[in-house]
Every structure is written in structure tokens, then in C-alpha cells.
């Protein structure tokens, strides 16, 4: 959160990111249909919770951390985009790795299924139960354990909220290597489990690089200690990577060691109008060449993405209307050097016409307003209906092709179809907004969109993961040989399949 200085509270409320999230979460009060009904899923043969089980959990956690009241549990059963809804009757809130270990050992012995949950901002239904899985929430595992200011490595518990970590390390001259619109709510453990990408991946790389170590608990309760905070550690298998991006299906992440880069002295942010998508690609090439090592983000959004966000959330658009928008951020160590570079890049590209117009600023409050507009796109349409969200990687020359194709395919059925995302990483988010979910519309898009992505050798999930929504489509991006190995690993690490069932792995034939 920002420090709120008195006379500007009203201005700040407009800008404060976390507020936007909260606002969106409560925008629509109607409860979604149960996932198992909506997607026709059969319960697997797990045990069911008995009162003796609850008694056991109360004996290892205190009563307040064992939630059984329907109203208390409801938010844990529904995902952020209100697409999935589970039927869990029990939420556990451990505070330590030992508690997590005891819970899992017990669940494994009793064949009780478990759904790990962080900030519950995941966009593929992985974070909520499907049937009566026990929700294991990491919200109370939120302690920062250590920070080494020389190496920049921080060790913390899995339930730390990303924005809190960022504020903490900023006070100490560092930043978190990842940043995303959900930062005010998502947990670092959730980020690791989904291998979240986000807004600055272009500069700081993905979590397979930044995560130095992990402590995780296997399904049988064994604690796996890979919590080294070293940049280099070539001793044996690199096991931590198994937990990065496995969405809670191989083990539960309890602690992480993460490398935090230095807080840049100089930050600039530009927001520009661009004529067409081809010009965005040209501009991207030019930005890489002319801004070089200071380029930290290169994001795009089409007119409908920005316009919907401005209208639905009543946010200011700092520049005029354009067919496409580009956001360029620089992180560097010398204000004068960076702004000179940036200005010559901007003058050049204004002259060539790649940039139609726009604005550039180094003032924190203004930068925040611009970022807030970009980050709010993800949830802006929750008010106007149901959103089909696609998160695909596509070779850059085909990056935007799908948006006009889907627009045409959907015709009058969609309220809007728009694209935005991390051009720099070849990752586009396509949102198809319809008044209300229905299976006819769904079948128009799926598997069609995945087939198209597969044709150009793309990935059907660039950063959100597979979760509950996409196991049956995973084969469009993963070879059978790889799927077999995934299945073998799952059997090795979680033989009873109690960890996040119905997620990630496709059903075996």
C-alpha cells in the first residue's frame, strides 16, 4: 500500500491498485455454477471427511485455524474470475512447515484430497477445489525469514503477499524480480507454483532463474529441504524446478529463497499510441536495440482493452484514443543517461511514425497511474459478463492474428474481444467477454483456439498454467513422451494422487 498523505486521499483512491482488485472481486455477487456440474467431472475415489478427521486437525492447529462454517469457507471455494466453484467443507490454515507436514501425512494415510491455495488469484481454476478437497491455505505462513543485502537473496514463507515483499525489499534498496497485476493479493508460493511471469520478465527473467531455493512438503508429509540461497549450486539434481510451475500437484511449497535485483535509481515509463500491430513489432525491435540494457518492460494493449478498462473502472487514460497502445519501461542506474537514451529513441520513432503520440514520465505517481491502467485490464470486464481468458505464447509475427479471427468467429455473441499482453515475451492475453457463460459459446472457442495456437507452434498457456481448466488441452502444447514422464513423476511423488486432483495432468485413458 501507498503511504496516504492527507490532502490527496481522494486522488489516491483512484490510483491505488489493491483497491481496484477488491472492488472487482465484489463486483458480481451471483455464485458460479459448481465446477463438477459445469464441466461434467466425476469425483475420484478419495476418503470423505469424518468428524474424527476434524478432531485430529483441531488437535494440531488451534480451533480458529480449522474452518468448517459454510460462510467462512465460501470465498475459498470460488476462483477470482468466478468461473469455478468447489464444494469444500474444510479449510486449514497452518502456520508452520511442521503443521503442513502433519496435515499431509494424515491426509495421505486417510486418502483425503487436498487443494493448496495461496492468494486465490490464479486464472485457470487451479486454486479452488472441485469436489470436497480440503483447502490448505497458506495465508498465515507470511513471515520474512532473512534478507542478504549483498547477494540480494531473501528467504520467506510461501504465504507472503507479493506486494508486501516488494515494499519490504524496496525499503532496503532491492525489488522483487516479478511484478503482476495481482500483486496486492497473490502469494509468493502461488507465484512459484504457477511459475508466474508478469510485467518485468523481459528484464529479470522467469522464476526458474530467480528462485534460488525451495522448501516443499511431499504428499506423504516428507519435508524436502532445497532451501539454499546460493546463486550457484550444482550438487545433484535441480529438484527445486519440480515445484516451480507444478501448480501444487507434486508438493506444497512452504518456503522460498528468491533473488532480488537492485532497486533501479532511474525509472521511466512511456505510454504511446501506435497505428497497427506491425508497427508494434518494429517498435519492439527498435526499443531492444536503442534502449538496450535499460529496457525493463514492453507491453501492448489494443483499443478495446484500454477503452473497456477506462470505461468500466472509470480510470483516466493519459493519452488520446489509438488503435494500439504500447507501454515501455526502463530501469537503469543513471537518470541523465537513461533519459537521454529514451529521448533520442522517442524522437526517432516519432519521426518514423512508429509512435503516433503519447507521454513519458519519471514521476512515481504518474507512472503508477499508467501501470494501474495496464494492470487493471485483466479484471476490467468482470462487470460486463463472463470472461473467457486465454493466455497463449505465439511467435511474435503471428502474435495478434487470433484477435480479429476470434472477433469474427464470435460475431454478435461477444460483448467484446480484445488482446493485450507481454509482447516482449511473445505472450498475449485474449479476453472474450460474453454476457453469460454458456457451453455453446465455449464450444465455439475451445478447442478451436488451442488448435490454432498449436498450428503456429505456440503454447496454450504462457504463464497462467494448466490448472483445472486446461488438462484436456495440454496435448496441444506437450508431446506424449513428456506427458508420460509427467505422469511418472506424479506417481513417484504423490502415489495416492491427493495433491490438487483434477488439475494439470490429463486423465489417463
Amino acid at each position, binding site marked *: 500500500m*501507498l503511504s496516504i498523505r492527507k490532502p490527496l486521499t481522494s486522488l489516491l483512491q483512484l*490510483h491505488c491498485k489493491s483497491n481496484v482488485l477488491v472492488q472487482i472481486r465484489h463486483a458480481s455477487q451471483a455464485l458460479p455454477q459448481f465446477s463438477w456440474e459445469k464441466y461434467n467431472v466425476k469425483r475420484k475415489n478419495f476418503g470423505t471427511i469424518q468428524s474424527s478427521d476434524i478432531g485430529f486437525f483441531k488437535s494440531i492447529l488451534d480451533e480458529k485455524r480449522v474452518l468448517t462454517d459454510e460462510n467462512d469457507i465460501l470465498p475459498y471455494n470460488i476462483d477470482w474470475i468466478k468461473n469455478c466453484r468447489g464444494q469444500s467443507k474444510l479449510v486449514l490454515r497452518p502456520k508452520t512447515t511442521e503443521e503442513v507436514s502433519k496435515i499431509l501425512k494424515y491426509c495421505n494415510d486417510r486418502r483425503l484430497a487436498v487443494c493448496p491455495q495461496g492468494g486465490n488469484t490464479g486464472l485457470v481454476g487451479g486454486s479452488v477445489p472441485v469436489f470436497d478437497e480440503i483447502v490448505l491455505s497458506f495465508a498465515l505462513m507470511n513471515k520474512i525469514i532473512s534478507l542478504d543485502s549483498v547477494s540480494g537473496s531473501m528467504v520467506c514463507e510461501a504465504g507472503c503477499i507479493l506486494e508486501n515483499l516488494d515494499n519490504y525489499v524496496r525499503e532496503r534498496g532491492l525489488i522483487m524480480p516479478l511484478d503482476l497485476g495481482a500483486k496486492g493479493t497473490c502469494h509468493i508460493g502461488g507465484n512459484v507454483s504457477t511459475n508466474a511471469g508478469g510485467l518485468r520478465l523481459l528484464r529479470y527473467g522467469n522464476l526458474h532463474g530467480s528462485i534460488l531455493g525451495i522448501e516443499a512438503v511431499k504428499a506423504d508429509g516428507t519435508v524436502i529441504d532445497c532451501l539454499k540461497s546460493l546463486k550457484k549450486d550444482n550438487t545433484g539434481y535441480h529438484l527445486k524446478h519440480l515445484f516451480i510451475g507444478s501448480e501444487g500437484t507434486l508438493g506444497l511449497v512452504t518456503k522460498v529463497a528468491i533473488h532480488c535485483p537492485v532497486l533501479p535509481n532511474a525509472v521511466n515509463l512511456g505510454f504511446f499510441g501506435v497505428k497497427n500491430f506491425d508497427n508494434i513489432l518494429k517498435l519492439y525491435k527498435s526499443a531492444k536495440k536503442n534502449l538496450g540494457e535499460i529496457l525493463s518492460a514492453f507491453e501492448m494493449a489494443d483499443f478495446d482493452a484500454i477503452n473497456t478498462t477506462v470505461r468500466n473502472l472509470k480510470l483516466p487514460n*493519459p493519452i488520446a484514443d489509438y488503435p494500439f497502445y504500447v507501454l515501455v519501461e526502463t530501469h537503469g542506474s543513471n537518470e541523465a543517461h537513461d533519459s537521454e537514451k529514451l*529521448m533520442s529513441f522517442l524522437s526517432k520513432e516519432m519521426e518514423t511514425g512508429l509512435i503516433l503520440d503519447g507521454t513519458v514520465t519519471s*514521476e512515481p505517481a504518474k507512472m503508477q497511474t499508467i501501470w494501474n491502467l495496464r494492470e487493471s485490464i485483466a479484471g476490467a470486464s468482470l462487470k460486463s459478463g463472463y470472461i473467457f481468458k486465454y493466455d497463449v505464447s505465439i511467435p511474435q509475427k503471428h502474435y495478434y492474428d487470433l484477435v480479429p479471427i476470434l472477433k469474427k468467429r464470435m460475431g454478435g455473441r461477444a460483448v467484446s474481444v480484445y488482446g493485450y499482453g507481454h509482447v516482449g515475451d511473445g505472450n498475449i492475453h485474449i479476453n472474450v467477454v460474453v454476457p453469460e457463460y454458456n457451453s455453446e459459446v465455449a464450444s465455439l472457442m475451445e478447442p478451436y483456439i488451442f488448435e490454432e495456437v498449436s498450428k503456429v507452434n505456440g503454447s496454450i498457456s504462457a504463464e497462467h498454467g494448466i490448472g483445472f481448466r486446461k488438462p484436456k488441452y495440454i496435448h496441444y502444447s506437450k508431446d506424449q513422451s513428456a506427458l508420460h514422464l509427467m505422469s511418472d513423476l506424479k506417481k513417484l511423488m504423490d502415489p495416492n494422487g491427493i495433491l490438487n486432483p483434477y488439475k494439470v495432468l490429463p486423465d489417463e485413458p
Partner: protein
Amino acid sequence: MSRVLVGVKRVIDYAVKVRVKPDKSGVVVDGVKHSMNPFDEIAVEEAVRLKEKKIASEVIAVSCGPAQAQETLRTALAMGADRAIHVEVAGAEYETLQPLHVAKILAKLSKDEKADLVIVGKQAIDDDSNQTAQMTAALLDWPQGTFASKVEKSDAGLTITREIDGGLEVIKTKLPAVVSADLRLNEPRYATLPNIMKAKKKPLKKVTAKDLGVDIAPRIKIVSVEDPPVRQAGSIVPDVDTLVAKLKEKGHV
């Protein structure tokens, strides 16, 4: 009306966390991001709109402060001001510079530049004084429209809607006049790229308070700057009975 003078102050950006120096002599400003006071941005925006509506012919931005105040002036120029005056006040003198000093400077410049209207923000978000507009008007003996949320040109001068406790007040003033901008007056624009480039070439004049014949000798001494008291953490009680018991225990009911 021909000329509008706008006061712009460089302050710590409002998205930045303000920190008190360990010796309590002030707040940490070194290496901290500064921006134009948000209310002054609103003042600049209003002046530029007056120019765009052809009500004003020239907008002059003025900032009193250290060398970096020129960055703030460049921002005003990029938003559409025509030229800028930097009144250099640095070091210890700047730390004790008060609204009265600034008002004297603005009053003198208004006369020198033959301004017809002075617009400033209603307050700066660093010292929250809310005095400069009023004092400038008094020194010039011009009418004032403070806390303006709407400014319109009328035949005789200006019609100004003011935000007051419990509602709005509409007043008419003759020109020349002094206006202070409130939050709802307008939404300041983001400077566009061509204007940011052009601003680098617009005229910026540097003067000192002494050149203007204004005495800025300190009238105050800063004794101590302290953090506001930390808010006590709340606690959740299980039920109403416990709440009542706790309130009784603390003597609140």
C-alpha cells in the same frame, strides 16, 4: 485578459513514502523522487485551458526553489506554459522559506510581468500551509477566489465556484485576481511527447529573491520534525459480549 502567472512547487512525489531524518531536522529529500505539487498541476492545467480558449494569451510558470525546481518548470512548460521563471532559493534558505516569502515573490513578479491572473494550488502536499494564494492577493490588494472548482470568464472578470464546508459558493471577481485551485477544478493532462520535446527549448529565466528585492531571511526556526504517531494495531474479538467487556475494561462505556 492577457497574462496568467502560475506558481508551481517541487515536492516529494505523493506516491513516495516520506521519511523523517534521524536527527529530526527535516525529512529525507536526497535521492527521493520529486514531482510538481499535484494542486499546482491543476493550476497549470487551468491556465493552459484558459489559453486554449483564447481567454489568456500567455502562461508564465514560476517556481521558487533549488536548481532542481527547473525540472518542475520544464514539466509546466511541457503541459503548455509559454515561459518559466526560476527564483533560485537553495540550501538553508529554502528550508525556512515560507508562504509569506513566496507570496511576496509572486506579487512582485505579477507586477513586473503585468499579470492579470495568478493561479496557484490551494496547498502544497509537503507543508500543507494553504496560505500563498491568500497572502499574494493581500499583498497585491487583488480579489481572491480560493478553493476554486470552476473558473469562468464573465464580462466584468471571473465567475468562480468555490468548494466550501457544506457545499459550493459562486463568487464574481474583477481582474486582476488571484485564484487557488482545488482538486476538482480539472484533471491535469499528461504532457504529450512533442510538447515534452518542445519544452526543452522554451525560455526559462533565472532570478534570485534579491534581484526582486524580496527579503527571504528566515522568520522561523525548525525545532523538530517528527513522524506521526503509529496507529495501534486493532484486535478481533470473538463476540459482542467480549467487545462490551473490553470497552468497559478500558473505560470507554
